[in-house]
């Protein structure tokens, strides 16, 4: 059931490339603007780069969240998924995984480029990528709960941000802290373990919360 749903999501995403590219383009453009905005002060830009990259990754992820269940909700597929899927958490997990592949994973791959544009030291890039690889699944999983809760609302975007952004803070704090520490020559294993733990917790709990949230949204229509 996971494979069936993932295949469906992947086909849909490959046929609506604008939705897939939007977060990546946003990340690239915003980093470009930051680089230009800091002018010639490359040293200061480099010092701020971990925070800038993580905040932009977080916002880019948020940008793609609203569409996660929107199409299926509007065409009625979501209520069919509620009725047909058993167990329901598997297709939900597949949807989140597909969304993570085109946002979190894609941004992890793009991270070295944008980090270098922000004058981040090359030695910090592996840590940045590991942190993004471990932290972005939590962003997608936690974000999916908010997206499922707000999918039935006409203008759910603001509410989604209000719901989700506070829950992103631990990932942001540990992610930025790890890169800052590696730039200062301090060991970062603790932050990496924390990011992994947060994502593990999210992957075990969030799909069930999403299923419940989808059911609430479908039943309210």
């Amino acid at each position: 059931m996971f494979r069936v749903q993932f295949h469906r999501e992947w086909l849909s995403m490959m046929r609506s490339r604008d939705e897939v590219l939007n977060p990546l383009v946003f990340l690239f453009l915003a980093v470009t603007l930051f680089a230009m905005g800091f002018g010639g002060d490359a040293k200061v830009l480099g010092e701020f780069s971990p925070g800038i990259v993580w905040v932009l990754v977080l916002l880019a992820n948020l940008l793609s969240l609203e569409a996660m269940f929107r199409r299926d909700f509007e065409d009625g597929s979501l209520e069919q998924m509620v009725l047909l899927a058993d167990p329901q958490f598997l297709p939900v997990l597949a949807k989140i995984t597909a969304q993570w592949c085109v946002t979190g994973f894609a941004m992890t791959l793009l991270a070295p480029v944008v980090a270098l544009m922000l004058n981040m030291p090359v030695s910090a890039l592996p840590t940045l990528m590991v942190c993004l690889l471990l932290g972005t699944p939590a962003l997608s999983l936690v974000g999916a709960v908010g997206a499922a809760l707000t999918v039935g609302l006409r203008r759910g975007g603001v509410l989604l941000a209000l719901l989700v952004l506070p829950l992103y803070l631990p990932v942001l704090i540990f992610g930025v802290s790890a890169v800052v520490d590696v730039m200062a020559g301090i060991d970062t294993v603790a932050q990496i373990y924390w990011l992994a733990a947060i994502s593990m917790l999210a992957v075990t709990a969030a799909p069930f919360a999403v299923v419940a949230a989808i059911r609430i949204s479908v039943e309210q229509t």
Partner: protein
Amino acid sequence: MFWCDALSEPLLTASGLACTRDRLSLFQDLNLTLHPGQCIEVHGPNGSGTSTLLRALAGLFPDFDGEVQASPALYLGHKPAINALLTPVENLRWYCRMGGSDADVAAALARVGLDHRLTSPCAELSQGQQRRVSLARLLVCERPLWLLDEPLTALDIDGHRVVHDIVVEHCASGGAVLCATHQSLGWQDATILRLG
């Protein structure tokens, strides 16, 4: 009070159904029994609760009083429930795999008159053709009980005939159909239930 009875073991039994939405009572003390081979058409003016009744029976609307016992049901709602970015074949395959069925998708689409649009994205199909893709779901998802909400919407005369034929065949093979519709399916054996 409404009673619709037949002889064999029922596929759907609902007793004492009552529903109020936005302080408006839609139906009260509604009793419904649907046996294999039986088709009930639910008629009623807009806002009389025909769609709400079907959603409640399908398990998509929990805010009602009464008891429902139903066999595995296939719910065909107002919305087409097809992904416009996928082709009719891809959409139906998803339904087959989710429902654990290995039905012949191409044959189902041919049955509803879409054999020439198998690989076109559903976004390129007309409203009526998209409705036909939805109807093809009935043929690939093997469920004894069908809950159909306005299945004739956007369909032409040939589409009406297709709906009539597959409903009659389903009932003849031991299935049962509860259909909310403003236009009769045209099957004389169907029982009429009026709401509102």
